[in-house]
């Protein structure tokens, strides 16, 4: 007990303390403390195990800014708490006859500049976001007491929920994920949150939304016919692609078979249906429009489209993919070939300046370390994390024709262009709907495909222009938040994949057993 203030507690009863506190006995036995009184001073007071010393709990400055409860019983609590210097507080919702504990893994703390300015400056994360799901849809849809307790202080207030839709609640959480910063380090803070209970609830919330959005899609086929392959594009927030793509592919004499447009923004359905019929009439081509109830995200929308495709050969084409007239004949030959085999094919994608934009992807990682600063030293907190990064080979590299005469096997391919057989896609259960809206589901599919179906390779003659990011209007912060969350989910799912592929090796030529690969080489 060197170098601490001397403390005396005249009424301390050593025998009684040891009777009520078995840990103290063990500590003495193991030699960690010299006696019951030392244990009491070092641990007992903080643990409140012996009520000899009475004290008035400090009231913590706190605000519960928003308490949101969704239709399916997901809840989101936003606010701030001035608990600097306190031990980790417990968050609890108290109803008439029930208590709901909010576990630490369902909470992340973030910087609040406004609180720092008015309460206390400095690098402390006052803000909190608590998120989870109630087992009952209706349990939290009532006024409750919100309690925060630590040994040093407490706070309690009555809160009344704002009742909102699942989608709105999810978007608000995703916006928070996107815009918040943390003095302790955003990535590490989020890692703890998203890899724990909250991450699971968020995925569940998105899946609930997906199920509602895809339950009864509206499907209309214009000039239906037997086709040998189906192009699929997912539209969101823009009708530009349907005005452009079929016209330009048709002008370049690329037979797209059936072009399925999945409309993830039902407010655009009228314009999309009108253009689909117009283009179908003008060029006598088959266009299918699938309108979903809401934005179900890239993966789920493609899953629906593939389920309804008129052919077994699928080509996923982002709305911002276009054709080079100079390479159109090569693309047409790829389409005219038979089976895609068991390979998940990607394309060689170019910027419109004709430099390469994508020739497959590899997986790398970034490490992040917690910065404690004024934040408490919490041994339960994650001190560092590593997040996977999906990188494109050859981004902005000049194209060399000689380098691309054969298929190349790669770790993953972008979802901007994917070609495969429907049966193999179904074998891996399609795109995972764990990934919210978009991002990382393509790499996830690639890794799962490689594990259970066959190779993933770039087709040397599937050459297209990718005007990256130009095909949709996903401009809200919720989409950025989704991308951040998806990176955490992808990292959690495929951390092992990285270790095997730590160094991005140059892609190697694809195995020759595949029929389409062989055909490609034969040209």
């Amino acid at each position, binding site marked *: 007990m060197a170098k601490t203030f001397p403390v005396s507690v005249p009424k301390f009863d050593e025998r009684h303390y040891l009777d009520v506190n078995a840990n103290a006995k063990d500590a003495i036995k193991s030699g960690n403390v010299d006696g019951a009184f030392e244990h009491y001073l070092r641990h007992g007071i903080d643990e409140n195990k012996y009520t000899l010393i009475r004290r008035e709990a400090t009231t913590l400055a706190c605000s519960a800014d928003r308490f949101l409860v969704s239709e399916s019983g997901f809840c989101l609590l936003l606010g701030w708490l001035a608990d600097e210097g306190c031990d980790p507080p417990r968050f609890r919702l108290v109803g008439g006859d029930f208590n709901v504990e909010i576990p630490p893994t369902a909470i992340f703390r973030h910087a609040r500049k406004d609180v720092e300015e008015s309460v206390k400056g400095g690098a402390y994360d006052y803000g909190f976001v608590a998120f989870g799901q109630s087992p009952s849809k209706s349990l939290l849809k009532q006024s409750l007491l919100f309690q925060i307790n630590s040994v040093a202080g407490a706070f309690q207030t009555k809160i009344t929920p704002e009742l909102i839709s699942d989608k709105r609640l999810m978007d608000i959480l995703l916006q928070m994920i996107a815009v918040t910063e943390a003095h302790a380090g955003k990535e590490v803070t989020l890692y703890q949150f998203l890899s724990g209970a909250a991450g699971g609830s968020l995925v569940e919330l998105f899946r609930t939304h997906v199920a509602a959005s895809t339950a009864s899609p509206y499907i209309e086929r214009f000039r239906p016919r037997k086709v040998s392959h189906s192009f699929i594009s997912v539209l969101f927030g823009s009708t*530009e692609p349907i*005005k*452009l793509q079929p*016209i*330009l592919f*048709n*002008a370049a004499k690329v037979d797209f078979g059936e072009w399925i447009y999945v409309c993830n923004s039902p407010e655009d359905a009228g*314009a999309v249906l*009108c*253009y689909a*019929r*117009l283009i179908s*009439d*003008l*060029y006598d081509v088959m266009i299918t429009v699938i309108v979903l109830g809401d934005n179900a995200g890239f993966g789920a929308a493609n899953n629906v489209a593939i389920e309804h495709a008129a052919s077994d050969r699928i080509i996923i084409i982002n709305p911002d993919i*276009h054709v080079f007239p100079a390479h159109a004949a090569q693309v047409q030959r790829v389409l005219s070939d038979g089976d895609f085999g068991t390979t998940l094919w990607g394309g060689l994608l170019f910027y*419109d300046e004709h430099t390469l934009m994508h020739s497959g992807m590899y997986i790398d990682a970034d490490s992040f370390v917690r910065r404690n600063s004024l934040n408490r030293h919490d041994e339960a907190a994650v001190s560092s994390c590593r997040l996977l990064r999906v990188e494109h080979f050859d981004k902005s590299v000049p194209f060399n024709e000689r380098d691309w005469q054969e298929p190349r096997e790669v770790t993953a391919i972008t979802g901007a262009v994917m070609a495969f057989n429907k049966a193999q896609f179904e074998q891996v259960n399609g795109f995972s709907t764990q990934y919210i809206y978009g991002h990382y589901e393509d790499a996830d599919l690639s890794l799962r495909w490689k594990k259970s179906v066959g190779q993933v390779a770039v087709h040397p003659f599937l050459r297209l222009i990718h*005007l990256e990011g*130009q095909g949709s209007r996903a401009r809200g912060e919720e989409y950025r938040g989704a991308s951040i969350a998806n990176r955490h989910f992808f990292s959690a799912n495929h951390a092992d994949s990285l270790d095997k592929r730590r160094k991005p090796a140059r892609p190697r030529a694809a195995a020759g057993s595949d029929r389409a690969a062989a055909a490609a080489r034969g040209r």
Partner: protein
Amino acid sequence: MRIVFISYLHPAVAPGGEQQLAYELFQAALRQGHDAYLIAALEAEHEAVYGKPGAPIVPMPGEERQYFYFPQRYDFLHLSVGDWRSVQFLRELIERLAPEVVHFHHYHRVGVESIRAARQAAPGAVIGMTFHEMMAICLADGQMVKKNSRELCQAASPVACNKCFPDLRPEFVTLRAARLQAFLAECDVFVFPSEFLAERYVDWGLPPEKCVAIANGQVNLGDEFDRSQHSRQVNRFGFFGQFLDNKGVDVILDALLVLGREKRIPEAGIVVEINGGNKQYATQAFLEKVLRQTEELKKVTTGRIEVRERGPYGRDQLAERMASVDWVLVPSTWWEIFGLVVSEAWMFGRPVIASAIAGLKERITPGVNGFTFAPRDARALADLMAALAGDEEQWSEVNEAIEQPWTEIEMFEAYRSVWEEIAEQRRDVGGIAVDAPDVAVVKPPRKEARKKPAGRAAAPV
């Protein structure tokens, strides 16, 4: 020959150069004994007056062979009609008319999809398109004048267009052009009233072998006019046209200010008559500039320069307005494509003083049939005005050299010869399949006229 003309607007509904030209071609075709029709795509605001419930196309009230078309879901960025029903009605009408020629005079409001629809409706027909501006190339209303600086744009490019339209990414410009060109590829021939415009469109991506220059013709309104008549002082200058930013009224006023400040006003003074309509479409900044110039002019010219604003005029007033001036000023500050005003001045024997730009530069040979000055150069215009005011000899020399501009009949015959040549060559190769019109297109033998417009059709350009 059965011909369907398709225009943007109709001169009876809204006056304007393109629709006037389309209408006069249509009238000329009838006069020459052809079986002609005119379909005019109107603005949405006209539908309430001229439309009929549920009918995308209606006959023009009180007229035969003329129709008003009300396309729905018009998208200006893509010059596109996104409504299948509108396009279907147009296609069915063309199908019913069974023309040998379908000739478009615009894509704005008409929608580029209509070209494909015309091809479906009349697979064997010659399909043509006359360009009257650069709307396909330039999103700034086809003017190719930079939106912020008002500088002349020399060439459209993804980056240059993005500077004018920061909300549109450079890639959009590329895609938009590719889409428009895909639809335009259905045409057998592209007609331009000037070489300048043809070159702009060829640079943009149209195949030169389909391009031909044919000067605009007009109904001659000057038959009864005494072309040799002029004022005693030969000091009366006239501006005719739209009172809009790019037409250069401000350049005239600046030139007058130069003369006033430098005390170079001829003894007899100078009179300038501004005959300009559609002032309501000019920008506020432009109108304020003109007002400032006018006030300034009053201070520096001590009454020896008289500027009269005579307002808009109808074609029936043209002779009277032209009689009131000796020289016609065409000081356009944009790429004037053809300059119908030049034709109008020439109908009445008025020498033209014009910006040496685009179609104006092509048409005017300085000292022979008019005079030119560097575009936007008020001092150069001032020098010309000072030199020419009162110079009766120069006026007479040019007056005598001015040829009568092409009439609408001559223009129509030039068009007809192009259509017939294409049809004839098509017959030689056994016709065109509807699915591949752009593959089998026959080269018009007059294609070289685009570069050197010395042929029948191009001579007056």
